[in-house]
């Protein structure tokens, strides 16, 4: 269980305004970390900092062990552009391999095989020629997940992966992610859904307004004051 990511006393924000500070957590290989918090608590800023898109204002976020820098598969929230984008499933999945190409303009056999493998892994190999915009929400998320797996095998960063899915597709998505985690993929997931977070994750990071409220094992979270009050108020509804 090697440590993969360490975040020490990090302050996050943009344009000089701090949105969250004193963020401390570590992620080890095989963990399933859920990042919880209300809107505006700096979850997406934290993701950008982890991905290296927007550096933290102070403190440090450090990769260690077998993960170097950008070896992280990212599942972003869907954008408006993608909704009517003409692209086949295969084209999208293989675009995850691009970081492995450095300056080579075309994909080699190795990358094509990797794309095949990940499509099989997520059960979408039958859709490979279908158009992305004709798929259901759950299928689209699988495509993007396969792309993320092409970019990195060891760690996935998922930004609210079930938003906009119907309950059945949500449950399937969670099972799929749990399955990948069982295969040894480290998962970091941003979520609103406390019920699923408690059910699937191994660790929870809860960010409140401007500061960190909790980080630790999920079973400790359930028994902590923060976790109990959050579960009591939000436990019932997971449609946010």
């Amino acid at each position, binding site marked *: 269980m090697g440590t993969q990511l360490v975040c020490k006393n990090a302050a996050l924000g943009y344009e000089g305004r701090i949105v969250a500070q004193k963020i401390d957590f570590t992620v080890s290989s095989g963990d399933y970390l859920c990042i919880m918090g209300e809107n505006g608590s700096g979850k997406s800023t934290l993701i950008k900092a982890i991905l290296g898109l927007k550096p933290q204002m102070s403190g440090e976020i450090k990769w260690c062990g077998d993960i170097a820098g950008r070896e992280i598969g*990212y599942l972003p929230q869907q954008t408006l552009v993608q909704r009517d984008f*003409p*692209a086949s499933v295969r*084209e*999208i999945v293989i*675009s995850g391999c691009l970081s492995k*190409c450095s300056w080579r*303009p075309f994909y080699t056999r190795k990358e094509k095989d990797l794309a095949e493998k990940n499509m099989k892994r997520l059960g979408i190999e039958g859709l490979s020629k279908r*158009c992305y915009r004709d798929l259901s929400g759950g299928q689209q998320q699988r495509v993007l997940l396969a792309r993320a797996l092409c970019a990195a095998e060891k760690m996935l960063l998922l930004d609210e992966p079930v938003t906009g899915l119907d309950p059945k597709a949500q449950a399937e998505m969670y099972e799929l992610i749990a399955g990948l985690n069982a295969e040894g993929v480290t998962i970091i997931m941003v979520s609103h859904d406390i019920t699923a977070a408690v059910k699937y994750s191994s660790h929870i990071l809860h960010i409140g307004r401007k500061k960190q409220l909790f980080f630790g094992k999920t079973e400790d979270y359930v028994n902590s004051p923060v976790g109990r009050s959050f579960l009591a108020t939000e436990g019932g509804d997971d449609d946010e």
Partner: protein
Amino acid sequence: MNEFITKLSDYLSHSFIQYAFIVSVLIAVCSSVLGVPLVLKRFSFIGDGLSHVAFGALSIATTFSFMLRGIAYSANGREIKSETAAKLIELIADSNNMIIILPVTVIAAVLLLRTNQNAKIKGDAAVAMISVSALAIGYLLMNKFPSSSALSSDVCNTLFGSILTLQENDVMLCLILSVVVMAVFVFFYNRIFAVTFDETFSKATGIKTDHLNMLIAIITALVIVIAMKLIGSLLVSALIIFPALSSMRVYRSFRSVVICSMILSVFCSVAGIIASIFWSTPAGSTIVAVYLAAFLVFTFISFIMGRKKK
């Protein structure tokens, strides 16, 4: 039909008609492939803004070469101190104005992209501002320093195209720029796809998305400069937008959309030129009319296909 072919082959024996066909095919290919990512990235407005900037740049260049000619003439008229200098000035003045138009348009492309990324100044307003100013200043300069007596036909030519006045060096320039644009597009094809589909993801996996966007803007500028001669600066965006929009109606993968736009665009431009020759209509607007017709046909096809599915 026979009459049609004899008439066409008769026309094709003229070099300026041949030039028109070569240039229009080259431009059709470049503008259509580039149009796909531009439309999908919601960058179509950059094409429109740039074409107006190119018009402004053209009139500045014309003014500039008009002044240079004046200097060269007066230098020749008095004591010919340095004949080489006078010749050099004339050479610059004759160089098709591209020395000025190309860099100005490229710089404008870069600036437009920047303002679009800057959340404080709204991109569309900035584009509108730049393009209207360029148009106004261009027309103002053309009036103040007319390069020929037929001012209104000059303006009309730059705004709506003058494909039948192409010279051999125009064709060469067009050929070189098209090769550059196509080479860049093919080499960066996979990256352009990735960055168009999902900029955040590409950035997170280490692709230099800002550089790539810049590159797209620059080759767009090149395409617009070469297309302006064919179809005029007011109609240039049609070449970029229509093929992509039409093929997106019917085709459902990125590659097939790119290939279809290319074929459709070549077909429409050639058909447009032939039509303009036969009916003696202005080439630029005829080509755009053919594009529009193709778009309507494709929309109809997609409508039929959609109904069949249900």
